[in-house]
């Protein structure tokens, strides 16, 4: 069991938690040592996994999932701890590792209770990594819940503003989504199992493809709404602005950067892959909702004054784009959706890291009270502009690649309904430019608003490390998108085949 590389993505965070538990309560040195060591190890493992994955694929291993392993966990219900990765999950693991790494440095000086903060942080990452490696729906769901629960405490204890309200709202809404999800997953498991034994393995379910179409429709709605809540789909997005606004920096990063990706990932891996005929039939409902998300989030972001709210609404718009792309049900658009997940993950993490750093200095997030930060903290100002350009889809940044892939893919669906929504979605590139430049113009450029800010300092080394990591990744995808694009496209072949067979 331990010879499987993937298992270590769960074990390392657990070791991290054990290590943290041994540290003294306020022994910052020891806590940081544990965090930095383990997150570096995770990042190294993720990079190695990507290389190994590409090597195996290059060597002609065409099985759908690599590094597979399956261990019986609870026999009567046929629950396994089953792991395996395809190109998409590999990239998601890499994304998570990068953001955990950057998040560690972004919360270098967290207080109070640093040890407890990092304990919950580590538990959250355990859940995230576990989710992406699982191919057994039950363990997947379990890790999903493991990732959600720490959120409540992380926001409730270390947050700012109306933190109790936001934490409660976020947790309740996501739990509501989980309830739908649980129903959907149980339905899928029992309907695809045989002889009274449920089937939880995703590959097996897809292979059997034995769910009755009329049941598929119901289950599709359940699972898509369940994951859609986490993917901030209109009208279930409202936890996101409040939650992000109140969460501490690293938590916002991890939440917007990775946790919201769980939603998108689940949508195609479970809702679409396992229920293809329902996806063909019902995708229009969700195309309407996600289409609204895209435009609606962008318009809302235009009038916000709190930096975090702006980014939270922009996340609604960008994550809407992810689900929108996935619902187009063709290979190119879905590939774009995954690229958008990666791009949005990195970009939003960068944004929230920077907002945290700015807030840590100015103690306000209201853009009306700040201005001309470029003069005071040029490094952070430049980084903020880079993040902004990535967000509005500047070529050379990952956002451009993702958005273009989505638009060109989505345009393949040639009926009028799809066309109208694709064109509506393309409008978001203008609205995004409006709200990004509005913030950049007010916050970074222009005259200095508050004289007290003049004495503030620029970024410290750990902040620079955190931001540079993210910027390098953003530009990396933006400049050399093709290998990622190919990796993702190849991974979509079985899903697209399943969808074709279901027409």
């Amino acid at each position: 069991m331990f010879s499987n590389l993937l298992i270590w993505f769960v074990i390392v965070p657990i070791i991290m938690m054990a290590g943290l538990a041994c540290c003294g309560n306020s022994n910052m040195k020891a806590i940081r040592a544990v965090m930095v060591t383990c997150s570096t190890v995770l990042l190294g493992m993720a990079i190695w996994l990507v290389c190994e994955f590409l090597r195996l694929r290059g060597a002609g291993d065409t099985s759908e999932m690599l590094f597979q392993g399956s261990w019986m966990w609870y026999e009567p219900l046929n629950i396994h701890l089953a792991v395996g990765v395809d190109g998409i999950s590999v990239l998601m693991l890499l994304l998570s590792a990068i953001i955990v790494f950057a998040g560690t440095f972004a919360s270098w000086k967290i207080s109070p209770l640093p040890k407890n903060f990092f304990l919950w942080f580590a538990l959250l990452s355990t859940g995230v990594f576990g989710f992406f490696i699982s191919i057994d729906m039950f363990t997947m769901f379990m890790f999903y819940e493991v990732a959600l629960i720490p959120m409540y405490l992380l926001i409730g204890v270390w947050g700012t503003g109306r933190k109790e309200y936001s934490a409660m709202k976020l947790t309740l809404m996501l739990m509501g989504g989980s309830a739908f999800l649980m129903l959907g997953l149980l339905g899928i498991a029992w309907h695809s199992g045989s002889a009274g034994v449920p089937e939880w393995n995703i590959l097996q379910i897809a292979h059997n493809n034995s769910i009755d179409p009329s049941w598929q429709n119901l289950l599709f709605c359940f699972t898509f709404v369940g994951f859609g809540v986490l993917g901030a789909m209109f009208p279930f997005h409202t936890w996101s602005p409040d939650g992000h606004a109140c969460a501490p920096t690293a938590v916002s990063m991890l939440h917007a950067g990775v946790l919201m990706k769980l939603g998108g990932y689940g949508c195609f891996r479970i809702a679409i892959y396992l229920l293809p005929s329902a996806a063909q039939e019902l995708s229009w409902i969700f195309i309407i909702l996600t289409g609204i998300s895209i435009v609606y989030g962008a318009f809302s972001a235009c009038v916000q004054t709190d930096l975090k709210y702006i980014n939270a609404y922009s996340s609604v718009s960008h994550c809407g784009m992810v689900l929108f792309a996935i619902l187009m049900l063709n290979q190119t658009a879905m590939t774009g959706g995954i690229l958008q997940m990666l791009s949005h993950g990195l970009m939003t993490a960068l944004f929230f890291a920077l907002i945290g750093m700015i807030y840590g200095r100015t103690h306000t997030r209201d853009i009306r009270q700040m201005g001309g930060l470029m003069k005071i903290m040029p490094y952070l100002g430049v980084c903020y502009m880079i993040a902004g350009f990535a967000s509005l889809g500047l070529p050379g940044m990952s956002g451009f690649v993702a958005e273009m892939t989505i638009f060109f893919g989505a345009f393949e669906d040639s009926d009028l309904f799809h066309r109208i929504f694709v064109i509506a979605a393309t409008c978001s590139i203008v609205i995004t430019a409006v709200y990004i430049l509005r913030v950049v113009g007010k916050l970074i450029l222009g005259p200095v608003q508050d004289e007290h800010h003049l004495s503030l300092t620029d970024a410290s080394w750990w902040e620079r490390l955190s931001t540079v990591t993210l910027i390098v990744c953003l530009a990396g995808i933006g400049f050399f998108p093709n290998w990622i694009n190919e990796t993702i496209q190849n991974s979509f072949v079985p899903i697209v085949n399943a969808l074709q067979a279901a027409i």
Partner: protein
Amino acid sequence: MGITLPILILALPFTMFLILGIGGVKMSRKLAGTLGILANGALAVMAYIVAFTYFFSGEAQFILDGVRQQVQLFDVTWLAFTERMVVNIGFLLDPISAMMLVVITTISFMVHLYSWGYMEHEPGFQRYYAFLALFTFSMLGLVVATNIFQMYIFWELVGVSSYLLIGFFYKLPSAVSASKKAFIVTRFADLFMLIGILVLSYYVSHTPADGPLGGASAFNFMMLNAQPTNVLASTLGATFLSGSVLTWAMILIFVGGMGKSAMLPLHIWLPDAMEGPTPVSALIHAATMVVAGVYLVARFFPLYCIVPDSLTFITVVGAITAFYAAVVACAQIDIKRILAFSTISQIAFMMVALGCAYNEPIEGVHYSGLGYMAGMFHLFTHAMFKALLFLGAGALIHAVHSNDYTKMGGLRKYMPITHITFLIGCLAIAGIWPFSGFFSKDEMLAAMFNRHWFWGAWMTMVAGLTAFYMFRMYYLVFWWEENPEYKTSHHKPHDAPWQMSLPLIILAAVSCVAGFIPFGELVTYNGEPYHIHIEAPVAATSLTVAVLAIGLATAMYVKKNPWPTRLKNMFPALWQAAHRRFYWDEIYMFITHNIIFNIICRGIAWFDRHIIDGAMDGMAAVTNWCSVRIKGMQSGTVTAYVRWYFIGAVLLAAITWICLL
């Protein structure tokens, strides 16, 4: 030709951007400036080598049987959407891209040199050179694009470099809002271009791969332009609002060009863009980036010809814009604004010329492709003399510290070099023989008269207006009445240092001789050489109109006199409207601010806060209310519990009883 030079041409400016952008903070001004200028000089040399090799080497890959060829020097895959939609990054060499290489690197080098003096005392000198390098890189990438998507990529990049450079003085709120406006307006136009590309590539990529289009990427210019009729055929007769899909796609793509080239009604960003440093205005907003729209039309010329409606559209947009901008330019005070509107008008001139061209012989017209050649010729000459005028304006602003001509007057004694070069620029733009503008404008007007007398007459009138407003500005700045402050001031206005004067002199020299370049031998729509000859009637008409207009300007503005004010007071409404640019900005402000921002955005935000959030909070409130209501039963009184218990027991018994019966 190998691929080393082409790659270097793209790689060098980008590397400079990275070096100056990342390491600039640690560099001295001198080092950064020297590096920037040297790199750009090397770049110019390389571009010249490439262009000269292309035009004059006579290699078979460049010129075959007297016809200039399109050559893709390299073309590597960058991103593959689908099998047929592959985005390549490459280097396409053909007459117009070779010509643009020369224009861009020349002007860029002049501006680099000029900025050495102009920006000497500005903070962020290194950053400025980094942005210039970024712009040069993007613009070069745009003109050598092998496919429409590569063009779109660099199209966005020039947009952002323009944003960064307009907002260079980032502490000024006006610069910040001008840069924002420029970016958003052009982005809005790019949205249409993107949709146009989406439509075009969808239809092209869905033609069977073994068909007439071959297996090439649906974005590739050479493939699209080589077989325009097949592109049209590939749309399978699909129509939208009674226009063929291809017409719509080409018009949508042109809207992107309208944004970048500041055509009506998307022109509003260009006058505001003058907030940027003046050398930047010369480079980006006069000579190179704003002609991207013209370049785009020229690049897609065969496709535009296949749907003549789109050519008509281009002509109409260009004609209206040219006239509008010329009228507005007559009523501006800020000299950079006058030049900006003049740029808009001149670019529109090129658009009309392109719109009047056609790639098939037309009956009664001896050369139907004349407009194409003339438009490109004017692009070339205009880049030179407009850059000259802007750099001259920069020298004036540098000396007087103001943009308004009301603060100038009588400067010819103080700034002789600037005066002479500026005059040359004005003569060139007015179209006076033997300056370069005369030749290109004559060809353009000839092409328009060929197409229809109306376009010719209309544009001749615009040419007259051009001569008038340029000389109005010239006289108000250099003659009129000497500003009395000069006499008393300690710092008398004086000519700029050599770094600034040298580019002026070089560009003035180019403007004097560029007209004699046998442009038709080099750049034509189909690569076959065309021998330019002056059309006597057209030349005579335009020259007469120009001289008359200059005469009128001389009469009105050479000496201080009350006539201009009196004229202004005669038509106050007209003057006011022209001065306020016919209220376009106010209209846009109303739409964006009052309607989109205040009604739509605020409305949605309100909806989100109160309806969506309210629904969630409402669910919580209902749950809470129910719980408060029910908890009264949990009174703590034991007897009450017993009562409930008995009632429950009796009810259960009753139900059981009923069920058993």
